[in-house]
């Protein structure tokens, strides 16, 4: 198993970790992965990947328009708004 880069993982998950907790979470993740790694003991070289346990295919709908929620409904959940926009801390790459 590869090393856990806890800083990178918290960056990707957008979670802020206090530095004193880094060791704890790092070790927890290692434990989890080691446990899951048990699956590697099974030889699956002749088994096709399974994406879902049912044989069913995806549900589809016709290309019809329905307006379920209004702009107000949607913006009611915005932490902050400016006119009809969501207003968020500046993000520029």
């Amino acid at each position, binding site marked *: 198993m590869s090393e856990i880069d806890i800083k990178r993982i918290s*960056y990707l998950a957008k979670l802020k970790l206090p530095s004193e907790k880094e060791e704890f979470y790092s070790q927890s993740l290692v434990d989890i992965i080691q446990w899951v790694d048990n699956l590697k003991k099974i030889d699956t070289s002749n088994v096709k990947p399974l994406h879902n346990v049912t044989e069913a295919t995806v549900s589809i709908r016709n290309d019809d328009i329905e307006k379920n*929620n209004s702009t107000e409904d949607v913006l009611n959940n915005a932490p902050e708004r400016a006119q009809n926009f*969501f207003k968020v801390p500046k993000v520029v790459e």
Partner: protein
Amino acid sequence: MSNNWEMVIGLEVHAQLKTSSKLFSSSPNLFGSEPNENVNFIDAGMPGMLPVLNWACIEKAIKTGFALNFTINKHSVFERKNYFYPDLPQGYQISQFEFPILSEGYLEIDQPDGNTKKIRIERAHLEQDAGKSIHDIDPKFSFIDLNRVGTPLLEIVSYPDLSSAEDVVNYMSSLRQTLMYIDVCDGNMQEGSLRADVNLSIRKPGGELGTRCEIKNLNSFKFIRQAIEFEFQRQIEVIESGGSVEQNTMLFDTSTGETRPMRSKEFSHDYRYFPDPDLLPVNLTDEQINQIKPSMEELPHQKIARYVSDYKIDKDISKIIIAEKENTILFEKMVNESDVNPKNIASWLVGDIFAFVKEKNLDVLNLLEYTKDITDLLKLISDDVISNKVGKEILPQVLEGKGKPNELVKKMGLEQVSNTDELEKIIDDALMGEEENIAKFQGGSDRVLGYFVGKCLKSTKGKGNPKLINKILLEKLKK
């Protein structure tokens, strides 16, 4: 200076699908609405909302599959591509990764030497578009409009088979044309319906491929060309000054015409794809795939072939007509509803009619209501009722709907003089006092004939039937 370097380019093209509703929600798929007007809780990424696949998107993907010679995969899987950005509130983009709906296609593009070049396409997959962020209103805040979230995209990924900006523009425009012909995408690049990411690296002929850089989100042919030329020079300079090209995602600055690195490199991205548990795999039957085939529109290259073989139209003229789908609608309507020679219709179309459309800045489809008048006019010419020259004069009025051709001709007194008696008189008058020239003709000088025809035409103010004048003149001169 390219110092013998060559560029190797692969293209990722994002085409927004022309559907009424979005990929996984029934919100309208519309450009130009008020901010956040076409958003429901699925699009806004609210917890517990379930995406349901729009069948029209599968149909459009299958049509693209037929048009671009793809293998259409009966089994494809939607996966989550995880990243955080405010214009995608789900926290992941639903895309296809390991099992795309289309694999291994190709498109042929024209080369300057008249040959065609086959551009292989690795894959095409369905995915959601993200929303739009506006950064320049407030110094501290970004404003988010989620209308575009969930718009269906088909991402079409070519192999690195393109080797110049010219190639890329040809490929892109041919792809655009095809997608518009089969009604998969409206092709409006200005509105972002079709956008390209360019992957470019350089090498010496036969040498090893350099590290590639990806230039994101180019939405015009002009920018594509500029970005490629700038990035090519930039990589050459980096290498020739002893450096090495770093793999990077670049942004093209449209105001300076330069590319610059986009993403911070503190941590590399990791999208952690995994099959979306909200969506079962897409399993298509042969029947579902094949029933779409009969609804396939004729493709641009098929139209060219048909125009050349059935209508005997030159390939170059056929190409001009098929450049826009609208032209072919107008052209084929005229061919189908009249017995005028298609070749004749084609040459008027690409000549005087297109010139008129361009001059008046018209939509070609506006002329659909005058197709009968246009072909009637062409018939008046081929029936020798009016001359070609008069036809050209009347055409603009016909195209503006100012009257029926035969009425216009009568009203303006422009009917061609094809009455033999009348013409004989005109010719006799023209030959009067021309003994010297008549002698020249009889002495073998053909040029004099042209002089006489011109003289007769002039006295009929261009309305004399030139063929008849020629014939009668010859008869008289040979006596």
